[in-house]
């Protein structure tokens, strides 16, 4: 009897394995979003864009009070000034990004010619360098201010990341990002999902863990812990360090693929950056 049960279980897990192996990104996204809807049935889907405050009523009250005088306002005005100030050669960011500044919704996207995921901060630096300006650091400072302004202008745009079917390398980048997300790493042997899917809503010391759904919508953020603005890749790096894994380079291939995967999984949510977080 026991043997039979074990073999049935093995067969079941084989079937389960097979369905996931064949899953398309679209199916992955459905399963992922359904999981969070089932975990938090009283949360309207768009509210996941508010991170942990979608599920923490006490934290939410504090946060709403903070949002009355948002701590990211300084960054917004700095960013706006950067956007409007011409480079030494007289050109501006607008020349690089004619559809800006409300254009965050197009990122990240797959660039077929270059065979890589393109992100907003990466293109900002490419714009600067093509105008003989020094590139900005990716994690904080002026870069965070500039994209805070762009994010603010782009509020309400719906995330619609595409994985072009005419280039298998795009799907490969998505799969790499997915593997990164679900791989356990570091001395603590945690994956991103250990905290933000399996344990979302549980407490880590006194902090409630936020659900993964919605994680990319509101960056850059002003984090009280940092006392300043930081970008999505700065947050990735912090998460990796917390599980005692060596962080990867901001805007390196690993984090860009991760952003591609995570943002795709948030398809359908509205952008609401910049945010304020604990």
């Amino acid at each position: 009897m026991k043997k039979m049960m074990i073999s049935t279980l093995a067969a079941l897990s084989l079937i389960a394995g097979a369905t996931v192996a064949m899953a398309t990104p679209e199916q992955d996204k459905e399963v992922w979003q359904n999981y969070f809807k089932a975990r938090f049935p009283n949360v309207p889907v768009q509210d996941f864009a508010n991170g942990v405050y979608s599920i923490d009523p006490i934290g939410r009250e504090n946060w709403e009070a903070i949002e009355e005088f948002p701590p990211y306002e300084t960054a917004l005005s700095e960013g706006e000034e950067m956007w409007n100030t011409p480079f030494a050669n007289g050109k501006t960011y607008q020349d690089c990004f004619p559809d800006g500044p409300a254009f965050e919704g197009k990122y990240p996207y797959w660039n077929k010619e270059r065979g890589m995921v393109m992100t907003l901060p990466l293109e900002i630096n490419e714009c600067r360098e093509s105008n003989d300006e020094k590139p900005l650091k990716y994690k904080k400072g002026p870069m965070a201010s500039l994209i805070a302004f762009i994010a603010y202008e782009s509020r309400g745009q719906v995330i619609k990341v595409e994985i072009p079917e005419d280039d298998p390398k795009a799907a490969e980048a998505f799969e790499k990002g997915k593997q990164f997300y679900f791989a356990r790493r570091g001395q603590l042997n945690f994956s991103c999902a250990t905290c933000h899917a399996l344990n979302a809503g549980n407490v880590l010391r006194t902090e409630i863990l936020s659900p993964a759904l919605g994680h990319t919508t509101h960056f850059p953020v002003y984090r009280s812990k940092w006392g300043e603005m930081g970008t999505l890749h700065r947050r990735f790096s912090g998460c990796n360090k917390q599980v005692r894994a060596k962080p990867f380079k901001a805007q390196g291939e690993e984090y860009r693929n991760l952003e591609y995967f995570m943002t795709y999984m948030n398809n359908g949510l509205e952008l609401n950056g910049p945010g304020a977080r604990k």
Partner: protein
Amino acid sequence: MKIRSFSIGLMATALMVAVPATNAWSATRSETESAIAAADEARKKAASVGGEWRDTGKMIKKATKMLDTREYSKAIGIADKAKAQGELGYEQAMSQKDAGIPDYVVAVGTPKPAVAEMAAKAVTMGIQAIEVMHNGDTVVIERGHDEDATLPAEFLKTERACPPFCVQPISAGEGVETVGEIEVLDYLKRATAGEAVLVVDSRTTDWVLRGTIPGSVNIPWNQVDPQQQGMFGDSGDIYLQNLMTEQFGAVQTEDGAIDFSDAKTLVLFCNGIWCGQSSANIATLLNIGYPAEKLKWYRGGMQDWVSVGMTTVK
């Protein structure tokens, strides 16, 4: 995609490896240098597959500095630890190469195919089915949809270690009534009709996701007993206070005391007679003055509920 399980042993080993390769008296500079070189090689190997740990590089730097102070045996200890981290990081990264969406997400997130309806059996003489509200939806509780139904997998197990899975006594506290399925159905009916009754699933969310009693509300036991979560003093009290006023209908008076006169009748349950979570919560609630006559304990819990094929919801 099945993730090869990466053993808990890894963490244990990682935290303990500090066995010096050479004994304290005989370590020399060249031995130390080769220990450091071996550690760096292991670190690089882990990094080559994206598996380097946070502190490995720092440990190697620290050991290298100790060459100047001639603390050779101490340096070798640190280098060996760093080497073990490198090896474990490599092994970990390799074991996670095929990581994908975990089973617990797939199980909950995959849309369920519709099952053909079968005539339901009576719950008991005189009760065919009852309608309850669950998270805003109407759910019918009935019995028997499937002739070949057996217990769900999570309730098949009989070997469970005590602690924590100790067999519970018949009473959860003085004056607290122990109830069975028929009474629970009645309380669910009353709750749905808007009476001051709350049927509480005290289990943690991961259990509730696999199915719970329709009409129940999940309040994980560690929210009532916050010290179990490692929360002390005020931070835990705030959660309990919030539960009291937001969910249980108790009122905090001006002098800080709690007025239970309009508090709801709570019917608590967890996984069954081998689960002490709901009874622990009852003890805590009694302790802070919750009236015993307003506390009911469904001792049989989920194990009994599913054993008679009653409707569950996910």
